[in-house]
């Protein structure tokens, strides 16, 4: 077991991390919004953690909080990502489809160039020597990312069966009809976007200690598209899609290690072939094999509940 973990443990953590980033893109997509902003919030979260954990300005706070500082970095990353998500989301989400995607790519690029040029982010070199969270090393980070993944999946599962989840679905299916049926689109589009932003920010804040170092390479255009690939190849209509897609696509280059220099070429081919042959994604393809469960009608309400419309009497002609 220890052998396995020392060989593949790091990869396993990276796979879970990729699944989480995929999920951060999945939430807005669930509401029909093609946002590629996740790497931007991921980078932001990482910088927040890196700065709080290394910058002398926070040394007093670190000394007094001990291990609690890590939890604080997650919270701060979540809050700031959420706030920035609202600030960016409110204007940007008026855009549709590919326009939104391009605006969010622009957002990621702007953050990247800022990070590259600011002093507090360490400029082009970035931030080094970020302390390990709670003394965890390498594969042990599964104890952070694993629970976060489980919580996120539970969140998604519950959300999709709720009033807010239905509003997301309605907007994805037909924004105008959703609006006409009483679902305020802007509110829920921003909500979905912010959920993704907060998740990506927290993942970033957990990743900075995991990687020890943080720099402007952490949030790039390539990462935007790679994250989109996680979701689309895994399946964008089901919460398991981004997890499966993120995990598999992260593992592919490792599995292909025997191909040495050719592995990245083949990795590209895998993306092409997968997008050609799995248009619904892996989970989408698997779902076709499973019969949907028949719907169960809830038992008739006790008389006290909301007044039901009277039953239909077919072919009754009034007046």
């Amino acid at each position, binding site marked *: 077991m220890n052998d396995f973990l020392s060989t593949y443990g790091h990869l396993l953590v990276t796979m879970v991390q990729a699944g989480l980033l995929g999920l951060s893109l999945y939430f807005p997509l669930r509401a029909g919004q093609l946002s590629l902003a996740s790497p931007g919030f991921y980078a932001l979260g990482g910088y927040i953690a890196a700065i709080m954990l290394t910058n002398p300005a926070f040394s007093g706070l670190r000394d007094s909080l001990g291990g609690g500082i890590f939890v604080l970095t997650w919270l701060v990353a979540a809050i700031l990502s959420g706030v920035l998500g609202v600030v960016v989301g409110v204007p940007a989400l008026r855009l549709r489809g590919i326009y939104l995607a391009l605006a969010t790519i622009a957002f990621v690029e702007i953050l990247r160039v800022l990070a590259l040029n600011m002093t507090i982010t360490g400029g082009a070199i970035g931030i080094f020597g970020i302390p390990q969270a709670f003394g965890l090393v390498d594969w042990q980070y599964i104890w952070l990312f694993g629970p976060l993944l489980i919580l996120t999946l539970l*969140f998604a599962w*519950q*959300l999709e*069966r*709720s*009033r*807010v*989840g*239905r*509003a997301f*679905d*309605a907007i994805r*299916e*037909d924004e*105008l*009809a*959703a*609006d*006409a*049926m*009483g*679902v*305020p*689109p802007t509110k829920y589009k921003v*909500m979905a976007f912010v959920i993704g932003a907060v998740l990506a920010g927290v993942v970033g804040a957990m990743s900075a200690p995991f990687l020890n170092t943080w720099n402007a390479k952490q949030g790039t255009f390539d990462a935007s598209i790679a994250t989109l690939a996680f979701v689309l190849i895994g399946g964008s209509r089901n919460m398991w899609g981004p997890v499966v897609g993120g995990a598999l696509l992260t593992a592919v280059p490792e599995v292909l290690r025997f191909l040495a220099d050719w592995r990245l070429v083949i990795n590209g081919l895998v993306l092409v072939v997968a997008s050609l042959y799995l248009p619904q994604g892996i989970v989408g393809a698997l779902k076709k094999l499973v019969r*949907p469960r*028949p*719907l169960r*009608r*809830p038992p*008739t*309400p006790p008389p006290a*509940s*909301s007044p*039901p*419309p*009277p*039953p*239909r*009497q*077919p*072919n*009754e*002609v*009034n*007046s």
Partner: protein
Amino acid sequence: MTATTDSVRPTVLEARDMTRRFGGLVAVNKVSFDVREGEIFGLIGPNGAGKTTLFNLMTGLTPPSSGTLTYKGQTVTGLAPHRVAALGLSRTFQNIRLFRGLSALENVKISQHIRTRAGLWQGVFGTARAEELGVERRAWELLDLVGLSDRAGELAANFSYGDQRRLEIARALATEPRVLLLDEPAAGMNTSEKGQLTSFIREVRDRFDLTVLLIEHHVPLVMGLCDRVAVLNFGELIAIGDPASVQRDPKVIEAYLGGE
């Protein structure tokens, strides 16, 4: 100008000089009319007369260039579509805009949005069970009403044209409207379906105590169903009144014959 019995009912909708221009084209031109509580009000006119545009102006999908609509004294124009729905005006679409990738049941559950309250965290922590159960039940009941509850789990896209129109009505009713706006509810239906539709619309009006506005091309259906009819031509209201008198109006005859 019309049957005296109608004037007893209070006015619920007042349209005043509603106008919409698209570039140089005036799609709806200074249209004013009143709709009384509980009536079935028909909107007819040749193709391109501006009927659907008028519906869009009334439901907030298109902002009017000028003019106002009030519902029981509250201004409707200027509100976003979901606010109009909250006020109690709900509609169907000429080109059917169901949530095609979702089940019939989901379609009807979604439209209860404005009548329910559960927020993000209540949903995630499952603390709105009672409300959720109510939504579920009501959705089934509405599907019963339109006769689609045995196919509740099927995707909306898989339904026939007529069934999709009925599902759209169920979806509109789920918002608990006071005024129901139907945009060509009979389009694509066969003769027997059209016949059932007439009694169905009356039945819905009576049971939910609604006011109904409908755009329709099928003249026999309009004449048999509507209490009053307004005729639009080239964006202007050219006649309004009870079906029989409108049918005799020379301007209406000319609009229909002149267009052909």
